[in-house]
């Protein structure tokens, strides 16, 4: 009897752990998506402190961001949208997701609307997940003359 019950308990335990892990991943995925959304929300609000607040201060890109953001806000009036976000995984230190971000300029501007497909790395700073870096997999630029069909850069 016990030999049949034990595997059942074990299976139940493993399923429980898997379920807990799945729930933890769901929570992490939502948290990371929130960081990405906060970055974009702050960018749209031209809130430089808000944008930088979503970036880990130890990121190799932090200083570049800090220098570039005020310039971008001064020179451009664009709107960013998080088109897609897929959590990929994590280890003890980093979490990884794939995000598609659309950025549009005002009508009549020279800005070329584009949607970039990015692999984004997140890192915890003070117990809070923040952006660490990203790599662009490809960019779809929207033609401003003629067809509106996106032009893939991949």
């Amino acid at each position: 009897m016990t030999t049949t019950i034990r595997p059942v308990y074990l299976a139940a335990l493993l399923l429980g752990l898997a379920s807990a892990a799945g729930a933890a991943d769901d929570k992490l995925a939502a948290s990371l998506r929130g960081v990405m959304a906060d970055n974009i929300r702050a960018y749209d609000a031209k809130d430089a402190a808000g944008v930088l607040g979503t970036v880990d201060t130890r990121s190799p890109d932090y200083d570049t961001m800090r220098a570039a953001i005020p310039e971008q806000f001064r020179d451009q009036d664009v709107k960013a949208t998080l088109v897609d976000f897929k959590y990929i995984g994590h280890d003890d230190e980093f979490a990884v997701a794939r995000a598609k971000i659309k950025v549009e300029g005002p009508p009549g501007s020279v800005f070329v609307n584009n949607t970039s497909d990015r692999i984004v790395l997140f890192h915890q700073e003070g117990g809070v997940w923040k952006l660490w870096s990203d790599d662009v997999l490809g960019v779809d630029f929207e033609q401003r003359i003629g067809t509106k069909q996106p032009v893939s850069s991949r």
Partner: protein
Amino acid sequence: MTKGLMLGFCVATLSACVSQTQWRPTVDTYGSSRAQYVTRDETECRNLAMQASGSTAEQAARGAVGGGLIGAAGGAALGALAGGGAGRGAAIGAAVGGIGAGTVRGVQSNQDFQRVFAQCMRNRGHAVLG
């Protein structure tokens, strides 16, 4: 290997993939009578170097990719650079359609860009260290 992966390879592994909007040669202004013109000359030489190296929206976009801008800021840089590059309208499509198509071409372009930029600054009387 996909074009996107080649682009990623270029960005991740090749130091020659400089940002053409941010890289500048190191200039020693000590004792220089032309020190006050460094910024102006950098702007003009950058534009000349981008033309001489065949910089297009594609390469400008590659520069943005290597520029270290994360999230929305990166997309904003891409759109601005593509708009300010050689391409306009349909030409943008033609130019960026080939992004990542030739890592070697991109590296050569960046090396040309750096070489022309530095030479231009020297021609204007600045002591370029590298």
